[in-house]
């Protein structure tokens, strides 16, 4: 018995020795810089931007990049990569964005690998679905949307867009229809034309951000490839252009500028000129109609099929522009700069609004994801910390350190992201982040609820004014006359909501610059309440003695929950390769964990956050 015990003990000790030796030997075998040196298996070039090809030289980087493809979705308190419906978590958005396609479909984003897949799936990019949901006026997404969603963007701009000069190609690329431009992604070596791989995310038409978007082929130096950023930096922000790296900048600046190619506010500026671009022959096929009977001008599918061919057409040109005219070099961004930019005559006369608010008729601005702008005013930025420092922290790969190419929330690895500089415990650091985000979330919810209250009151006022004879033309309410009386209030709606939208669209719940976030949210709250005050004055002027302002809270807002997206009518979804027939009532998304509700814990957090329940939250 004793012998047997000794034998087992001896075996355990021996296994321990073997494992320990194995580790030592593997460490010794690792050459220096193992992770960051090209394996030189393939030649990398801009002619072939597929990350599957570049990744052969950098298998570890490719593995990191693709982690998000297979890992289970995770939620942080206000982010993560579980693609739940933001409209279910924050139902106020359906009112704030009323009349704009975001009000029917807005999901939490789930990482660079998926951005093209998600853009092809979203209902905002599904014309028939929008037609049948009251958005027939929306003309379909332009290729300008692809600027930030595809690793093929530069290739398409250079090789598929029409025109002789880079400028002409740039405008031609942006002005094509999204679904037309996607069809031009080539089937390079190893991929068969119109095969599942050709439609897929691994180098095909659904490939998201790729290595070439941020790296120079072969030297792997950081570079800026996106024309819109190069234009904004050289025209307005004092940078010099560079033929290789896009703009002249230090490596430390580049570690943020590569992110600034997309993580910014932008708009599609009409150029005021006609431009040649690619069209589709389906436009002259009178048998091809949208659900509502109007003529199709493009096939909502990712390939040329059924005899549909590329044509050359002339359309009104648009261009992707970052509104940074007022933002000087080495200065923090301030929200007032957007007011100044978008209200300048030269801008407002050609770009008066992103959309007209369905309920208030105010000319609205929709802010996208202005991480670059918000971050610039932070204490981290003042200390020279770059985006990559926190979102791509160094991780050990054998004997060398490499930046983590699974670009993600720093909350996923506080040790690697924060503790390079901060020496406190991970629990302490996490508590600090939580405290900042919860306080900004409180401010943001206050602004959103107040803005919805303002929208309610404007609607009420519009209805009352519409009943007065002086606001009628030919016996019908005259929206223009009503809007003229409400002009000041509608401007407060525009500017205030833009501020809340800025913080809501910005991916950090204020953490990127808490002081600036709370400064603009305080303004937004003032604007919403000031709008209500103005309404009370107008009520007084027109003798509505029983006019009341509203003040909605969490429970009122929850009643607006739209639920998961479903088809309203029977629809053949043309984007499916088999043109699947969907019945009214069918769930729109094919995957369960997209567009579902968030974890119940998050709703509980939101409930306690506004009004702030310190007994639970602290």
């Amino acid at each position, binding site marked *: 018995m004793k012998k047997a015990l000794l034998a087992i003990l001896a075996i355990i000790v021996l296994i321990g020795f073997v494992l320990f030796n194995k580790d*030592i030997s593997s460490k010794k075998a690792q050459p220096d810089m193992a992770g960051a040196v090209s394996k030189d298996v393939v030649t990398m070039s801009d002619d072939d931007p597929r990350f599957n090809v570049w990744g052969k030289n950098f298998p570890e980087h490719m593995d990191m990049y693709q982690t998000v493809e297979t890992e289970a979705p995770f939620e942080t308190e206000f982010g993560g990569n579980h693609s739940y419906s933001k409209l279910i978590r924050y139902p106020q958005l359906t009112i704030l964005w009323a009349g704009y396609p975001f009000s029917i479909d807005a999901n939490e984003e789930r990482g660079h690998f998926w951005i093209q897949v998600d853009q092809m799936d979203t209902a905002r990019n599904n014309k028939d679905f929008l037609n049948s949901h009251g958005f027939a006026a929306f003309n379909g997404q332009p290729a300008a949307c692809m600027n930030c969603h595809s690793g093929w963007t530069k290739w398409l701009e250079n090789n598929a867009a029409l025109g002789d000069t880079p400028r002409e190609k740039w405008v031609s690329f942006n002005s094509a229809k999204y679904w037309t431009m996607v069809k031009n992604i080539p089937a390079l070596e190893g991929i068969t034309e119109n095969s599942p791989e050709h439609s897929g995310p691994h180098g095909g038409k659904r490939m998201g951000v790729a290595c070439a978007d941020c790296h120079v082929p072969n030297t792997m130096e950081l570079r800026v490839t996106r024309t819109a950023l190069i234009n904004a930096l050289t025209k307005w922000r004092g940078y010099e252009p560079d033929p290789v790296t896009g703009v002249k900048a230090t490596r430390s600046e580049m570690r943020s500028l590569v992110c600034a190619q997309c993580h910014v506010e932008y708009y599609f500026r009409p150029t005021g000129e006609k431009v040649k671009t690619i069209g589709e022959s389906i436009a002259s096929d009178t048998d091809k109609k949208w659900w509502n009977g109007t003529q199709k001008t493009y096939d909502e599918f990712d390939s040329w099929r059924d005899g549909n061919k590329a044509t050359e057409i002339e359309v009104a040109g648009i261009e992707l522009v970052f509104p940074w005219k007022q933002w000087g070099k080495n200065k923090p961004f301030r929200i007032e700069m957007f007011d100044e930019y978008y209200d300048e005559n030269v801008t407002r006369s050609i770009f008066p609004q992103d959309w007209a608010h369905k309920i208030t008729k105010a000319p609205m601005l929709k802010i996208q994801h202005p991480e670059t702008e918000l971050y610039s005013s932070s204490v981290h930025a003042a200390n020279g910390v770059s985006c990559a420092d926190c979102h791509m922290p160094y991780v050990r790969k054998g004997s060398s350190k490499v930046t983590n190419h699974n670009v993600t929330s720093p909350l996923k690895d506080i040790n690697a992201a924060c503790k390079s500089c901060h020496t406190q415990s991970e629990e302490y650091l996490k508590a600090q982040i939580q405290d900042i985000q919860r306080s900004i979330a409180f401010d943001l919810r206050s602004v959103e609820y107040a803005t919805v209250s303002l929208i309610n009151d404007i609607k009420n006022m519009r209805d009352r004014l519409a009943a007065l004879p002086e606001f009628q033309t030919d016996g019908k309410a005259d929206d223009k006359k009503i809007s003229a009386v409400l002009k000041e209030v509608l401007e407060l709606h525009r500017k205030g909501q833009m501020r809340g939208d800025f913080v809501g669209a910005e991916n950090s719940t204020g953490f990127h610059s808490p002081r600036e976030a709370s400064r603009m949210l305080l303004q937004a709250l003032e604007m919403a309440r000031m709008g209500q005050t103005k309404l009370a004055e107008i009520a007084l002027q027109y003798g509505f003695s029983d006019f009341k302002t509203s003040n909605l809270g969490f429970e009122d807002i929850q009643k607006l929950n739209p639920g998961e997206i479903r088809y309203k009518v029977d629809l053949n979804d043309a984007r499916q390769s088999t043109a699947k027939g969907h019945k009214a009532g069918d769930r729109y998304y094919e995957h369960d964990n997209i567009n579902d509700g968030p974890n119940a814990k998050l709703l509980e957090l939101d409930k306690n956050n506004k009004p702030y329940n310190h007994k639970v939250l602290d």
Partner: protein
Amino acid sequence: MWFLVVVVIIIVAAGYTFYNAKGMSYFSDDSAACNNCHVMNDVYASWRKSAHSREINGKPIASCNDCHLPNEFVDKWIAKAQSGVSHAYAFTFKLDDLPQNFTATKMSKNMVQANCVRCHSQMVSVVVNPTTKINHANEQLSCVKCHASVGHTRGF
């Protein structure tokens, strides 16, 4: 007989492991020995840039051991053995759990503090005793709390 075979196998395995792990180097005070492991690359590199690594008569002012182990003979070798075993255990069984940035344990902090005071006693004897427990009963002030970058560019 059977027992002897096992003992011989274990001795041989232990011997080989000792050789493979550069076991002899751990009996020295050479800081390079700590850097046998890649996880030490960062702290070793930053120590090389710090004032403490400056060499006088071919010896650094303070090696890893001078700060991170007790100075008394018996305590030093007990601490060394303890660290050696726990490091070997961590690298063998918990390699994937190792964080990018390390945090000093309570024991390690105490040893560092004792060593700061040991070398700099002339200086600290005339300033307020940093180890006083009167005002800092739960978390006494330590030297590296303020002088965070004396040993490495980044404090721990």
